[in-house]
């Protein structure tokens, strides 16, 4: 069987207990029922059989994934695992949550279903994440408390931090300190905002200021973080790759994310990733409750074909074919491009930022080799789950 896993984002709840200003998802009070999950599982396993994939990585997101409660995930696990095993396949489950609903009842399911690992999101400074009617400060407090509880319970936590205009005004060292010191998290991934769906506050950031911040953050991490094992994405994978080591880049820099990812929501809608599935129905690949043959859907979907053809267009028409960083980028993220420029047939709006970052990482590659040698620790990039962008 193929060693390549199927990467799948599942959105079992399209509503959320938070009211973040910049959320790119169009919410609705729809949740996935277990009978419908059973139908989806059949379709997914049929597709895995056709693509000869032994394993699927399932990223449970929302809306807010925890709204379904721990018992629902236990039942989902009981349903999916034997179905996969009966066909000689397996699922690896990952959870992405705002942690608002986290508490002791979740502990068993985090251990058994999610292998003791939780993915969450927070920004610094937090300007957009809030509960309905609440303030970002209140939300941060709730989140920090939940993180503390989860860490005390022995869970591993990875955080996605989306930058905002105010992030660029704080010293990068303070940014890092908030996550590693105040929150106690040592696995951080920095993401760049985009103005998708009904949001406000996720506007594309100005390139020069953003580049300065990211380069400063890279320096801050190298000065105080790298040597003590703090993982900072996407820098860590970039540095490893520039040093000739294996590394797994986030989806924005995959050769073609349409080859790698799929997203299915609680209504059965299939699209490239969560933003597309919740907010841009014209870009859906189809609906699995209407046409359960996922492989056939992917084969004939004009929307998917457009995504698949995007890098070729960029190489031909947008200059990416001449870029010295082609092997790292391939034209960047379609959703960031679409939400900033109204088309996927253009370079990622953060192109200049990426180029600055790639250049800086190439410069630092030798230093990384020396440090890794001195630390004599194994490369940690490859066996980890993929660094997702959302």
């Amino acid at each position, binding site marked *: 069987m*193929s060693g*390549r896993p199927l990467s799948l984002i599942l959105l079992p709840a399209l509503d959320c207990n938070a009211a973040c200003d910049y959320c790119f998802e169009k919410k609705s009070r729809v949740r996935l029922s277990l009978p419908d999950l059973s139908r989806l599982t059949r379709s997914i396993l049929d597709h895995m059989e056709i693509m*000869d994939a032994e394993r699927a990585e399932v990223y449970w997101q929302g809306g807010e994934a925890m709204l379904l409660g721990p018992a629902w995930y236990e039942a989902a696990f009981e349903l999916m695992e034997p179905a996969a095993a009966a066909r000689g396949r397996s699922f690896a489950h990952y959870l992405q949550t705002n942690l608002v609903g986290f508490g002791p009842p979740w502990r068993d399911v985090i251990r058994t279903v999610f292998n003791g690992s939780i993915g969450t999101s927070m920004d610094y400074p937090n300007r957009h994440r809030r509960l309905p009617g609440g303030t970002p400060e209140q939300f941060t407090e709730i989140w920090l408390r939940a993180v503390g509880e989860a860490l005390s319970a022995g869970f591993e936590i990875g955080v996605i931090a989306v930058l905002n205009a105010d992030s660029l005004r704080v010293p990068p060292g303070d940014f890092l300190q908030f996550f590693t010191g105040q929150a106690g998290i040592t696995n951080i991934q920095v993401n760049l905002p985009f103005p998708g769906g009904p949001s406000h506050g996720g506007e594309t950031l100005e390139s020069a200021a953003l580049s300065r911040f990211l380069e400063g953050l890279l320096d801050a991490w190298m000065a105080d973080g790298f040597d003590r094992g703090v993982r900072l994405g996407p820098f860590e994978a970039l540095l490893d*790759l*520039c*040093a*000739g080591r294996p590394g797994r880049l986030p989806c924005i820099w995959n*050769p*073609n994310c349409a*080859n790698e990812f799929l997203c299915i929501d609680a209504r059965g809608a299939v699209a490239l990733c969560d933003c597309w599935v919740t907010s841009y129905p014209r870009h859906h690949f189809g609906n699995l409750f209407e046409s359960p043959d996922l492989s056939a859907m992917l084969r004939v979907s004009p929307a998917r074909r457009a995504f*698949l*053809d995007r*890098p*070729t*267009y960029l*190489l*031909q028409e947008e200059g990416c*074919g*001449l870029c*010295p960083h*082609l*092997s*790292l980028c*391939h034209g960047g993220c379609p959703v960031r491009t679409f939400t900033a420029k109204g088309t996927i047939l253009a370079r990622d709006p953060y192109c200049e930022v990426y180029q600055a970052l790639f250049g800086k990482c*190439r410069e630092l*590659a030798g230093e990384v080799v020396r440090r890794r*040698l001195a630390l004599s620790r194994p490369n940690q990039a490859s066996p980890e789950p993929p660094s997702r962008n959302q």
Partner: protein
Amino acid sequence: MTADIGPPPDPILSVPAGSVDAHPAVSLVIRANRQEDLDRVRGVSPDRIVWIEAPLDLAEIAWPPGLPLDVMVADPAREAARLHGLSRARDDRLIRVSIPAKAGVSRAARIAMALQLPVRLLPGQPGPEAAAELRTVLETYLHDPQANASVQPFDAALEYLLHGRPVTAWAALELDPAYVIRIPDPGEPLPAAPRPDAPGFVAAWISRLVFEAAECAGCPYAGWCAGLFKWPDPAYACDHIKPLLAAIGVNAEAIARDLGEALDLPT
């Protein structure tokens, strides 16, 4: 296929798909040019197929699972961007991209290298523009840390200059008839004499060039090149080729130094 130290006892045959039935017992490189050739390929036992050679337009048809595919680029300038579409198929099978050294070769090669696909550069007798493009490919090959798949003949040249590994450019490019004998397509004009289709050809060719006092006689790279760039026209001047090989030589020396220093590092 790898061009290992010695030629195999029975050379592989490179045949048009239409004539596979005429060669029932040997290992084959099957040259497919049309969708209909798929059935011919399916009729051959997979363990006899070393490569399927096919144009880019046929790269994603339903070739038998797992068989290696050599994508033959005809017009690099026109086809370069579309090579990126191979990112879909590269997880299903080994894919190599063979690119002639003509306009667009650097773009095509860099795109294939960005996807970590092995590349076979078919140099022929390149003019100054094509040689300049090969230099660009060489720079990417030598200095882009992401360029970690094989690029022939650079791989073989580097191994020769670094380790003295005696694989000629002919063998590395699978053009040595001691390794692969090419059966022409029906009606294909025969190459100029001497024809490179008999075992022993490469040794005879370089001997002849040296005997005739071609520039190979005093060339430091002749042991590796074996007159590849002098074929078919022995009068071809290697002015644009030698700097490429010299650059590989300089890097081979630097790598040898680095390796020496690395061995001295504490473990």
